[in-house]
């Protein structure tokens, strides 16, 4: 599973494309837990939403390896 990282999420993860090779992550919620556990700085620095296929996803949404997944930290355009 590949996860795109932007803004502060990229700084926390240390790369713009994170590859996760792990069984059992099949929902947005599961992915969020994995990310917070793996990168505890998320807790300290920022909240984030998760996008699946270029749209905001809700916690119960499914994720599969073929989806385009992205971590969306608080936006600040304009």
């Amino acid at each position, binding site marked *: 599973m590949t996860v795109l990282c932007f803004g*502060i999420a990229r700084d926390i993860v240390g790369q713009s494309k994170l590859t996760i090779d792990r069984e059992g992550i099949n929902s947005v919620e599961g992915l969020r837990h994995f990310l917070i556990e793996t990168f505890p700085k998320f807790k*300290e*620095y920022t909240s984030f939403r998760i*996008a699946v296929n270029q749209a905001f996803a809700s916690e119960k949404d499914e994720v599969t390896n073929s989806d385009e997944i992205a971590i969306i*930290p608080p*936006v600040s*355009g*304009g």
Partner: protein
Amino acid sequence: MEDNKLNIKLTNDPLNLSECYRFVVEPSCGGINAFVGTVRQWNKGEEITHLDFESYEPMAIAELEKIAKKAKDQFNTQKICIHHRLGKVAITEIAVIITVSCKHRKAAFQACEFIIDQLKKDVPIWKKEFLSNGSYWVNARP
């Protein structure tokens, strides 16, 4: 929305207000409203040297299209143009331009405000502020 009614652009080049104005000119409209967001020198008492914008481009465009569609449905806009700058942007330079044309002025004002408010809430664009002694992602502090 049809292509000739909506113009969205994310670009590393300087933005052009007259281009955004010209796009929304429309014979049926008596009101055109423009919002121009510029880079200010001071934020919360700290002096900014410049900003750097990045975006998740395909999703940013998809979100802007959704916002424009809502604005059209809610305020009966005729044409909408949204241009956002990316990359390094200097003090006083333009970060964003929104222009909207409507039959009457009130709807144009409201639609323009609605679009910039939604953009700031939901469009995946991030701003990094650079100060003389460091830099940080805006809104990322908990």
